[in-house]
């Protein structure tokens, strides 16, 4: 009797109604009245149905006055009471019994079906193991601002603002891609818990992993599918991608989606890297993922912090992975490094262990000589982005430069070498007029030894030519130590 539902009564079958003649006959038999004539039975069935409708119509009034939109057994009880009929005892609005149908003899269709109330068997083992739910403390209320001077504040109690069209200029593009769903007709129905959220097909794996299962409103689900489909595949329209990223960067009310998005990125990165990731497309893909992370971090209205531990692995993976597609490698690592730096500047205060965690991971990537050169490169880039001190820690104090140097052919001038040199330059700028260290002077020779010890032969050779620089690199080290 939900009044909201349009009364599109489907054409009833020839035997009208829900209360069947057979049921009447069953009842008659139970009352010891065999051979009830057809006409009588069908008339009775109609009458029973009419009475049921009467009761339901009456119950609907109670439902309406209780300000509900679902009819409960309590309403039926009230209706029976005002109609002067004895109420049906034993039904409670909580836990309405779910009737199930079964065919007692599956091979014999004519035997008819039997209805029963499902009685679930409860295992004590499970009950004991299960988390205990504490008693609620009784009815209580909370208050929040639904609107302040005509503006709905963006607080968790309020539903997220209805998703705007992502960008005016991309609106047309979006509507054209949306199959069947035109862009501007999002009905402003508020999210509801009773609306089931069919999780998109692509997210089945996610179901197992996401611990917090949030119920997404239909609008957000739509938004999510459109967003991900306009971001990927990376070959798609760049304008759309830019628009999608802009939406991620600026739109409010995406917080319910955040866990899904973070997860989506994580999965995507892992899958791409696992697949070998040597092609151009893979590189593009990773680029998009990094862009998404950056956009999420940029969004002022999102509380990304709880998800940092999920975001970090993706960033690290891209930064330190050994075999990124060569064409994009530098760009990817630089971006990842920048994201790390951004994370550190914004969240190191609120997330106490964050700097240590990041720097440690990077240094391990740098000084572990079993790691590939690409990993070293990524680590150095990361450290460079983080700052001078971190870089010094890695390259000098923890002998990162030596590790790298050991892997280099003498006289080699590869990208990695350049990078290390850049790093060293960052630690202390080389002097404009380099004066080489004099191996004859005792102080200088001591310094040279020290250089060889810390930076390794390879890089010591290169630094030796600038006395001031070498001193700078090492002296600051002293001050740090």
């Amino acid at each position: 009797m939900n009044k909201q539902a349009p009364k599109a009564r489907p054409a009833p079958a020839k035997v009208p109604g829900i209360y069947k003649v057979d049921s009447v006959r069953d009842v008659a038999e139970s009352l010891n009245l065999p051979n009830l004539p057809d006409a009588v039975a069908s008339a009775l069935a109609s009458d029973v149905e009419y009475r049921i409708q009467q009761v339901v119509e009456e119950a609907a009034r109670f439902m309406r006055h209780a300000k509900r939109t679902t009819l409960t057994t309590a309403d039926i009880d009230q209706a029976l009471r005002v109609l002067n009929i004895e109420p049906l005892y034993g039904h409670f609005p909580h836990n309405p019994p779910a009737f199930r149908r079964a065919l007692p003899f599956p091979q014999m269709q004519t035997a008819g079906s039997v209805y029963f109330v499902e009685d679930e068997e409860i295992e004590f083992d499970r009950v004991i193991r299960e988390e205990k739910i504490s008693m609620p403390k009784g009815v209580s209320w909370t208050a929040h601002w639904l609107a302040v001077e005509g503006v709905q504040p963006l607080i968790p109690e309020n539903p997220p603002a209805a998703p705007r069209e992502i960008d005016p200029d991309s609106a047309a593009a979006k509507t054209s891609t949306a199959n069947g769903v035109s862009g501007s007709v999002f009905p402003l129905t508020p999210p509801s818990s009773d609306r089931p959220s069919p999780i998109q097909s692509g997210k089945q794996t996610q179901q197992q992993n996401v611990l917090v299962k949030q119920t997404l409103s239909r609008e957000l689900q739509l938004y999510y599918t459109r967003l991900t489909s306009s971001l990927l595949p990376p070959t798609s329209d760049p304008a759309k991608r830019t628009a999608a990223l802009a939406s991620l960067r600026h739109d409010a009310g995406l917080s319910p989606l955040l866990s899904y998005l973070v997860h989506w990125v994580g999965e995507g990165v892992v899958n791409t890297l696992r697949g070998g990731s040597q092609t151009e497309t893979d590189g593009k893909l990773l680029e998009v993922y990094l862009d998404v992370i950056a956009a999420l971090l940029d969004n002022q209205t999102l509380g990304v912090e709880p998800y940092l531990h999920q975001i970090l692995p993706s960033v690290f993976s891209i930064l330190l992975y050994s075999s990124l597609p060569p064409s994009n490698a530098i760009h990817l690592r630089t971006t990842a490094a920048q994201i790390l730096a951004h994370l550190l500047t914004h969240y190191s205060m609120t997330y106490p262990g964050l700097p240590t965690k990041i720097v440690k991971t990077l240094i391990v990537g740098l000084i572990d000589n079993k790691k590939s050169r690409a990993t070293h490169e990524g680590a150095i880039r990361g450290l460079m982005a983080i700052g001078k001190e971190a870089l010094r820690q890695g390259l000098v104090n923890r002998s990162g430069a030596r590790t790298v140097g050991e892997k280099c052919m003498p006289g080699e001038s590869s990208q990695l070498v350049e990078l290390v040199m850049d790093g060293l330059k960052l630690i202390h700028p080389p002097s404009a007029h380099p004066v080489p260290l004099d191996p004859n002077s005792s102080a200088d020779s001591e310094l040279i030894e020290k250089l060889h010890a810390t930076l390794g032969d390879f890089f010591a050779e290169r630094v030796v030519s600038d006395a001031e620089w070498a001193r700078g690199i090492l002296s600051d080290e002293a001050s740090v130590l």
Partner: protein
Amino acid sequence: MSAATPAASTPDGASTPAANPAAEGPSSNTSAIDRMVLEYLRSRGHKDPEKILEEIERSATPSDDQGKQPETTPAHSISQEELVKQLAIFAQKPANPDENALKDGTNVLQELSTMGNPQNIQNLISSIGPVGAEEILSLDPTDKHQGFRELQSWVDGSLDMYRPEFRPILFPIFCHFYLDLVQQGFREAAQDFYTTFSHSLSPIHQTTLHHLSTITLPYHVQTDEVAQRFRSEKYTVRMSRSGFSLLIGWLTEGFGGEPTGTGEGFSGDKGKRGRAAIMRVVNNHLRFDVTSSSTTSVSPRAWEESTGFLSSVVPQTNGSTTDASTYNASKGELKLGPAPIAEELRTETERTLRDQALVDHDPGAQYDIHYARQAPLTGLVSPAISDLPPHPPSFRSVDVKREVEKVRDARKRIRYDPSVLNSANANTPQGAAVRARALPSICAYTFHDVGEGVPCCEFSPDTSLLAAGFSESYIRLWSLKGEKLKGMRSDFQTTSIRDVSSLNKIREKGGSTTRKLIGHSGPVYSVAFDPVGGSASPPRYLLSASADATTRLWSLDTMTNVVAYRGHQNPVWDVKWSPMGIYFATASRDRTARLWSTDRTSALRIYAGHLSDVNAVGFHPNSLYLGTASSDGTARLWDVQRGACVRVFYRHDDIVSTLAFSPDGRYLATAGEDLAIRLWDLGSGRCVKKMTGHTASVYSLAFSAESSLLVSGGADWTVRCWDVKAAGGLPTKARENGATVNGTSDEHPPEKEETTENIETYASR
């Protein structure tokens, strides 16, 4: 008519087809009749009665067995009345096939009665009367199908200017046809008829149609209330003179009104009978209110408003049925101005205000009491003190406090002016300021851990208390100021109480900021705090209405139930205090609203007249009038003291579930299951505008203090703000939290000019 439909009105006649095979066996009575029949037919010169019977059977459906012939199955038992009717057909058919059955039928009956039959048949024949023969022709279910289809295509094919006035006649004819079919026992044909045609009528008449669809047995038609209303009352349809003559022309000649070439009129025998069936409904059950105004000068909505069971919905004046606007006009002017205030109270209030202004060293403070009171609007008559329901002649300090606070509140009040929204662009910085001027701040309270639901909740006027009524039959109070809610101990000597301090001694110790009031034995549907304290002091009493048919008065000093007011026989849906306390009104499922005073346990006035549940009551701000909203789709305004209905607000398409008076006393807003909010002008009783936008039922309405803004809340989890003063129509732009909602102008194209979009929507979870 009941005598004229014997076959249908007796269960015997309806179930004859089914009972025939079972009731085999000749009886002396029936054979006598058979003989008489044959004799009669021969005397009339019919050589071949069987042939005639076949002819009739061909035009009828197989399911219809009216053509059962007594000659060929002589042993067949058939009720006597049935037989007589069949005879009537035989008699008229060959003689005058094209003429109305009426004349000939009469002849037949006369002849029959002169033939010297047994006495019982004589009686029967005389009771059938001349219409019996005509009635038989209506028994073919396919006629109705055909007739209605042709009527529908005629209405749809008519000129655009006529269509709005023709369309309303489809619904009553549909209902009557359906009920006829059911009553005559053609269940499947009725079902078929319903499924074929109901969808075109469903948008407006959904509730009634659904109810009709549940009626499937002749017995139900006899007992069902809705069906009986169709049977016994006339359904009024308003038409212009030219439209009416077109309809008559079509009914009698088979064409007229439609564009040339589209209507072929009635064709064939069946078509004629269909037309006859429509004619019958039109003659017996419809009342045409033919206006002299031309078709184009009346808005489509006006056609709709004067359609329906006006005779019962609108109280009769001088025994004649009128439509709502005529009725409202006949009731004269109302005194809608603000209530007067007693002279002594006014002086005292002014004095207090002046004193306080001196104490506060605020000589500029305005202490004129009129400041708080709106200047009476032009055109509104203010009542005199003698017009008000009797109140104690003396005033108490709480009254002074309330009046003083009222003035202060008025000073502090933010004046909302929604009209500024139209001129401002929301995206500019100024836009934000404009919004703040036009739109309110809303604080939402959410109840947690509620078992079966909270049908109602209410804040005290001084916002110190929150009361909520629960489905589990109790009321819970919360102190919003964090004070402990203490009752009284029950173990005390009355002699020991002398002054305030001794009274305080017997207060309960401890206590918490929330308290449960237990007393009702059914869901609590409404609670109301007494308004005497106003915003100055906390309320002392609480009223609650419940499904157990009682209204209870709770003392908030002792936290106990003081009185249970019994009188309603059915659940009480709503209770409201009069604006000045003492009196209160209740609305109940028993179709009445009642007026009570707190010191009497029986009702002072009963306001009866609604045709269905009274869902809500509300006092006019000057307490002279009482508004009621009912499930019969109307709202009424009653004179509180006389108990007479003074205005009928007709009509909503569905249940009206809530109402609100504007504080300036000029408007009434009603809303309900038809998802529209209607604003009525109390003085004229006219609908000012219809505001649509809600997507589920509207639960509550409230005006802002200066009546410029209307706020509504509904089952679609939204709070919507409406501009009361705006002229209606589509505003230049609609803002709705970023997403634009198209209002509902698409759904109600004919009402576009009356539809006002809401100016703001706040969704909540």
